[in-house]
C-alpha cells in the first residue's frame, strides 16, 4: 500500500537543499569532518583509547595495593625510573597514577567519550535534523578535545611525572611544586589540558542545546522527544552552567601557581621558611571546584540514564513507564545537582548547621533517583524482554545505580561522613553509582547504536561474554571495598601494610586486584568485537532492533544530511511498543494516528482533524 503526501500549503522545508552526497577527500571525511556522525565516532574512538589507558593505570596501582611484596621489575621497560631500585612502584608515581586514572575516567572517558559520542550521534538523528546547528563549532569541539588529550597524554611522560594531587587538585598541594613533584610541570600541563577541555565541552554543549531547541523536525514537540535527547539536553545545560565555574577556579589556581598571587594560599611554611603568600583560602578552591564537581557527576550519569531508558523500553517491548516522571526526575536531579556541592566538604570545618542543610538537600536526590529506578523496573516488569548485549548492559546499569545509590544515603549524612570521608567506602560508592553505571550506559549505547554507526552488527555472543565478565568483575572489585572503607582505610594511600589495623585486609585486597585484572582483560573481548565488527560484522538491517525512533528511518549507512529525501515528520511519542490493536509490536514515530485506527486511544483519535487551525493540511491518497 503506497501513500502519497500532498501538501496543499506552501512547501516550507527550506533545509532540503542542504542535503548533498558528500564525496570529500580523506581529510574532510575522516579527519576535519563537520558531519555529526563522524565527529561522534571520533569522540568514541578517542574515548576508547583513554578508557583503555585509564583502566591500565588502575591495574598498575591495584598491583601495588593487592601485592605489596610483588617484584615489578618487569614493568621497568614501560615505567622506567618510576620503578624503584627495589622493584616497587615509586610512591609519588602511585599518587600520579591515582590522579590520572580519576582525571582520565571522569573527564576524558565519561564526559567527552559518553556525551561527545552519543549527544553528537543521536541528537540530530533522533530529533530529525540534517546536522548540528553549527558543524564547524562541532568540529572545533572535537579538535579542542583532541588538543587537550594530547597535552594530558604528554604530561604522562615528563620527568617530574603527571599531576599527582588527586583529580580534585586541591591547593596548596597542587599549587606548590615544592609539595610534590607532580605539582610542577605536570600540574601546569593538567591545567592547560583542562582549559582546552572546558572550551571543547562548552562548544559542544552550546551546539547540543541550540540544536535540540531550534532544529527539531515538524511535530517533534518536547513531549515527543526520546528520553535520550532529554538527558543529553539537560546534561548540556548542566555543563554550560558548571564548567565556566571550574574555569574560574582553575584560572585563579594558575595565577597562584605561575604569577605569585594568593587566592588559595596563606600562612605556609616549607622547611621552616615562610612563603610570601598571605590572605588566601584553600577552602575557597574547594567551593569553586565542587560547584562544578558535583554537577559533573550528573554530566557523567544522565546521558547513561537516558540511553538506558531508550534501550530498556526498546528491548522490553514496552512503553517506558512514566515518561513524564522520567523527564521530571531528570530535571529535578539537574536542579538539585547545583545545590548539594558542599556535601563533599563536610569535614572542612564547615558550620554544622550549614552541613545539615546540605545533607537535607543531598538526601532529597534519593527521591528522583528512586523514581527513575522504579520506572526502569516497572518498564521491565512483564515485558517481552530480548536480552541483547545492549539490554544486559542497561539492566547492569540499573543494578549499579541501586547498589551504589544506597551507599550514597550513608555518605550524604554529615555525621556518618566523619567516619567514611575519604575512605574506600567513598571509592566503592562512586565507582558503582557513577563510574560503572555510566560506563555500562556507554557500553549499552555502543552495542545498541553500533548498527547505525557502522552499518554492521556486533557479535552478540562475544557481547554476552563481555557483559558477564564485566558485570561480575565490577561487583567483585567494588563490593569488598565497602568493608575496607567502613574499617576506616583512607583512599589514595600508597601502602596498606604500614598499619597493623589494615593487615587483615591483605587477602581482600589481593582478591580485588585479581578481579580488577580479570575485568580489564574482559574489555579486550569488547575491543576485538568492536574493531572486528566494523569491518567484518554481519550486515545490519535498517531497523535491527525494531525501534520506533527517527534514527532507524534513515538508510543503513546515512550520508551527510542523514535522510536522502525530506526529513520525516513526527506524529507520536517514541514509546509505542506493543500497543494493543497495532499490527506490529512497535509503531515508529513517523506513522500518523490516522494510519493506525485499530490501536488509537480516544484522545489520539481526536488528534486526527480534518482541518487544522492554520489551514495547513495534508491528504493521503491510497493508491490501491
Amino acid at each position, binding site marked *: 500500500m503506497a501513500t502519497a503526501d*500532498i501538501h*496543499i500549503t506552501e512547501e*516550507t522545508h527550506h533545509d532540503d537543499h542542504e542535503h548533498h552526497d558528500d564525496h570529500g577527500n580523506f581529510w574532510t571525511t575522516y579527519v576535519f569532518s563537520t558531519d555529526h556522525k563522524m565527529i561522534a565516532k571520533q569522540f568514541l574512538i578517542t574515548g576508547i583509547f583513554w578508557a583503555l589507558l585509564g583502566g591500565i593505570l588502575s591495574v598498575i596501582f591495584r598491583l601495588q595495593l593487592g601485592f605489596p611484596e610483588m617484584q615489578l621489575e618487569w614493568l621497568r621497560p614501560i615505567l622506567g625510573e618510576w620503578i624503584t631500585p627495589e622493584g616497587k612502584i615509586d610512591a609519588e608515581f602511585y599518587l600520579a597514577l591515582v590522579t590520572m586514572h580519576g582525571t582520565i575516567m571522569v573527564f576524558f572517558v565519561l564526559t567527552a567519550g559518553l556525551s561527545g559520542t552519543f549527544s553528537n550521534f543521536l541528537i540530530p538523528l533522533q530529533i530529525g535534523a540534517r546536522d548540528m*546547528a*553549527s558543524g564547524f563549532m562541532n568540529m572545533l569541539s572535537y579538535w579542542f578535545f583532541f588538543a587537550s588529550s594530547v597535552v594530558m597524554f604528554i604530561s604522562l611522560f615528563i620527568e617530574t611525572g603527571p599531576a599527582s594531587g588527586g583529580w580534585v587538585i586541591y591547593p596548596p598541594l597542587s599549587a606548590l611544586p615544592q609539595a610534590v613533584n607532580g605539582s610542577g610541570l605536570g600540574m601546569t600541563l593538567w591545567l592547560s589540558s583542562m582549559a582546552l577541555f572546558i572550551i571543547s565541552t*562548552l562548544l559542544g*554543549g*552550546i*551546539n547540543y*542545546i*541550540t*540544536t535540540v*531547541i*531550534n*532544529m*527539531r*523536525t*515538524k*511535530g*517533534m*514537540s518536547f513531549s515527543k522527544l526520546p528520553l535520550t535527547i532529554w538527558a543529553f539536553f539537560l546534561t548540556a545545560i548542566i555543563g554550560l*552552567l558548571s564548567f*565556566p*565555574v571550574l*574555569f*574560574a*577556579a582553575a*584560572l585563579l589556581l594558575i*595565577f597562584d601557581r605561575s*604569577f605569585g*598571587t*594568593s*587566592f588559595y594560599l*596563606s600562612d605556609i611554611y616549607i622547611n621552616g621558611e615562610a612563603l610570601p603568600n*598571605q*590572605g588566601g*583560602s584553600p577552602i575557597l578552591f574547594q*567551593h*569553586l571546584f565542587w*560547584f562544578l564537581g558535583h554537577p559533573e557527576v550528573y554530566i557523567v550519569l544522565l546521558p547513561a540514564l537516558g540511553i538506558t531508558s531508550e534501550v530498556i523500553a526498546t528491548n522490553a517491548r514496552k512503553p517506558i513507564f512514566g515518561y513524564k516522571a522520567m523527564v521530571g526526575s531528570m530535571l529535578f536531579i539537574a536542579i538539585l545537582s547545583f545545590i548539594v556541592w558542599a556535601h563533599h566538604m563536610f569535614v572542612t570545618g564547615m558550620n554544622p548547621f550549614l552541613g545539615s542543610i546540605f545533607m537535607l538537600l543531598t538526601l532529597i536526590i534519593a527521591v528522583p533517583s528512586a523514581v527513575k529506578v522504579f520506572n526502569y523496573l516497572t518498564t521491565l516488569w512483564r515485558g517481552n524482554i530480548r536480552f541483547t548485549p545492549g539490554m544486559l548492559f542497561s539492566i547492569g546499569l540499573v543494578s549499579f545505580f541501586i547498589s551504589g545509590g544506597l551507599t550514597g544515603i550513608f555518605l550524604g549524612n554529615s555525621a556518618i561522613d566523619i567516619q567514611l570521608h575519604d575512605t574506600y567506602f567513598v571509592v566503592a560508592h562512586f565507582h558503582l553509582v557513577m563510574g560503572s553505571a555510566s560506563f555500562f550506559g556507554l557500553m549499552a549505547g555502543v552495542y545498541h547504536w553500533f548498527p547505525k554507526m557502522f552499518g554492521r552488527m556486533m557479535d552478540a555472543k562475544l557481547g554476552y561474554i563481555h557483559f558477564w565478565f564485566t558485570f561480575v568483575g565490577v561487583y567483585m572489585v567494588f563490593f569488598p571495598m565497602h568493608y575496607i572503607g567502613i574499617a576506616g582505610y583512607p583512599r589514595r594511600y600508597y601502602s596498606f601494610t604500614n598499619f597493623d589495623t589494615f593487615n587483615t585486609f591483605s587477602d581482600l585486597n589481593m582478591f580485588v586486584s585479581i578481579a580488577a585484572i580479570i575485568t580489564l582483560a574482559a574489555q579486550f573481548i569488547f575491543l576485538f568485537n568492536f574493531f572486528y565488527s566494523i569491518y567484518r560484522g554481519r550486515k545490519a538491517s535498517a531497523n535491527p532492533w525494531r525501534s520506533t525512533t527517527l534514527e532507524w528511518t534513515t538508510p543503513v549507512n546515512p550520508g551527510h544530511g542523514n535522510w536522502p529525501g525530506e526529513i520525516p515528520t*513526527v*506524529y507520536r511519542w517514541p514509546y509505542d511498543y506493543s500497543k494493543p490493536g497495532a499490527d506490529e509490536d512497535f509503531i515508529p514515530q513517523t506513522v*500518523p*494516528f*490516522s*494510519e493506525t485506527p485499530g490501536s488509537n486511544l480516544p484522545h489520539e483519535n481526536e*488528534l*486526527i*482533524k*480534518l482541518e*487544522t487551525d492554520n489551514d*495547513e*493540511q*495534508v*491528504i*493521503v*491518497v*491510497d*493508491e*490501491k
Partner: protein
Amino acid sequence: MNMKGEDMTGDLKLIEEPKRPMAMNPRKFALWLFMITVVMIFAALTSAYIVRQGEGNWMLFKLPLELWVTSGIILLSSATMHWGYLSAKKDELEKVKIAISLTTLLGVAFLVGQVYVWNALVEQSVFFVGNPSGSFLYVLSGLHGLHLVSGVIFLIIVLISTLKYKVHSKNLNQLQMCATYWHFLDALWIYLFVFLLVNH
C-alpha cells in the same frame, strides 16, 4: 490528486498535520548560550570574592576615580551602538558607519582607560601579587577586558561589512548579534563596577 478531498472518492483520508516547532536563529541562540557561560564565570569569581572577603584579612583601598570615567565611556558606547542599530533599521547607512566607528573607538578608549586604572592601582601600591582584595580587582577587570577585546574584534568585523554596505534593514542579523554582545559586555562591566563599589 492536488485538490481538497471532498470531490474524490473514498480512497482518501486526511492525516493530522503536526506543528513545526518554534525556533529562532541558531547563531543568535548560540550567542545567548555563550553569554550565559560568561555570566557563570563572573558569578563564580564575584561569589569567590564575597566568600573570601568574609574570611577577613582583607586589604582596604580606594577604588581609582578613573573607573568612573571608563564606566562612562562604556555606557556611551552602548548608546552609540544602539544609535547604529536604529539607523540600520531605517537604512540610514552613513549614520551606521559613523555609529559603529564611534562604538569601536569608544571600546578601544575603554580598554586604554582600564590600563590607566591599573596604573592608578599600582601608584596606590595595590599590586596583582599581594592581598587577594587587590588581585581580585585585576582578575575581574582583566578578564572583562579580554572579553571586551573579543567584542571590539566583532565590532571591526561588522564595521567592515558596513563599509561594504552589507548591513541594512534586510540584513540585520550580524549587527543585531554584535549589538547584543556589546550591550551584554556593557551591562557586565556595570555589574562589576557596582559590585566593586558596594563590596570593596
